[in-house]
């Protein structure tokens, strides 16, 4: 394997930001998805939702302008854009579970070819995993995209035939953006849409735990 450079986490976020059109209401999970907020092109109005009751939050404030009452779901200090609003938790999750968000982007431990997502418990033995809003977002939003490294740190595939980790939700993932490729989840298959320059189909397949389909790839 040589001749290609995997995307950095920031580059994965920037790649996803390209695909979010103006006017969408979007929830960004913790990890790579959080970085998307800073990558949305200047002037494109995308409204960001936070579980703790905010629509329209903006970037982190300058350290001397921190407002202790204004945090996002990752408990980081944020700002509010003009047109932003506050609401309580039941309304916030009515927004999520009522199907009002256009998109959520989540991290993943594993995604299976039928769109199952595992991103909350690290093992079946983990008796105190933190689920937060992940299960609500995964079943409630109109689209679920995953942002993740293509493999674990020790090289195990995260895109698999079926998830070994405890599930967050069944059959919900529509698209996966990794450091190597953009892959749609369509009718129980992983369909590769885009790969980093210089990466061969064979190399991508080797790092994936189930069969990839390439015939519909838009850019090679």
């Amino acid at each position: 394997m040589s001749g290609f450079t995997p995307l950095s986490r920031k580059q994965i976020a920037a790649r996803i930001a390209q695909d979010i059109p103006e006017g969408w209401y979007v929830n960004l999970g913790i990890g790579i998805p959080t970085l998307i907020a800073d990558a949305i092109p200047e002037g494109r109005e995308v409204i960001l939702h936070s579980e703790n009751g905010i629509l329209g939050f903006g970037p982190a404030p300058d350290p001397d302008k921190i407002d202790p009452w204004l945090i996002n779901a990752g408990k980081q200090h944020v700002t509010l854009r003009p047109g932003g609003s506050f609401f309580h938790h039941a309304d916030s999750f009515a927004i999520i579970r009522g199907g009002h968000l256009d998109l959520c982007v989540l991290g993943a431990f594993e995604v299976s070819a039928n769109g199952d997502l595992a991103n909350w418990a690290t093992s079946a033995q983990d008796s105190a995993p933190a689920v937060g809003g992940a299960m609500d977002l995964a079943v409630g939003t109109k689209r679920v995209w995953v942002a993740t490294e293509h493999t674990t740190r020790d090289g195990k595939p995260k895109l698999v035939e079926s998830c070994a980790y405890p599930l967050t939700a069944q059959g919900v993932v529509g698209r996966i953006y990794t450091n190597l490729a953009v892959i749609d989840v369509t009718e129980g298959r992983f369909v590769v849409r885009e790969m980093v320059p210089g990466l061969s189909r064979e190399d991508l397949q080797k790092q994936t735990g189930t069969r990839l389909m390439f015939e519909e790839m838009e850019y090679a």
Partner: protein
Amino acid sequence: MIDKEVPNIAEALGDVRDGSTIMVGGFGSVGQPDALIEGLIAQGARDLTIIANNAGTGMTGLAKLMAAGHVRKIICSFPRSAGSTVFEELFSAGKLELEIVPQGTLAERIRAAGAGIPAFYTATTVGTRLAEGKETREFSGRTYVMERALHADVALIEAWRTDRMGNCIYRESGRNFNAVMAMAGDRTVVQSCGMVTLGMLDPEAVVTPGIFVDQVVVVPAHTQINETAGGMC
């Protein structure tokens, strides 16, 4: 004259019994009624079931209540986070029961209790281990899990401004679980950052109408117990 303000926390929490279920508002430290939690520690009730989004961090608030041995069980969505060492220690030692509830289901179970709805169906958790043992039902070809309302004996709330009738407004993301939990307690005690003259709260902007509130304790800025520099009020 209706006046829900009580002079101190000891009076507000004096009759909390052992074995009570207590809701605690807030998300992380924002909107968490820390002074009321301190009051609960001083009051001494034990064997408590706590309903909150998080299981406390550091050594203040919920973490302090748990460390002092007052909590038997916690119902929350996100027990583990940076600094949740007290929870980790008690849980791994088998000294704390835990019920994990997805955040939206937690909010809706609380809302349902406040609205007199005994149970409801949701798609959240279908096909996951959090749905194990729960009744499911199909509506229009989709499977849903039944979840039950979640009541509390006492709800502890933090508000930004209140009046003597108990009307509340909140500040920014401090509203979070507070406005929902205020509806779901048999008794709702508000820690208010400031009391205003009756008529000063814009009726169009009141978030929690006073009917949901039983007692208000004013905790001004200088006595706020909070890790954030400068306090929250």
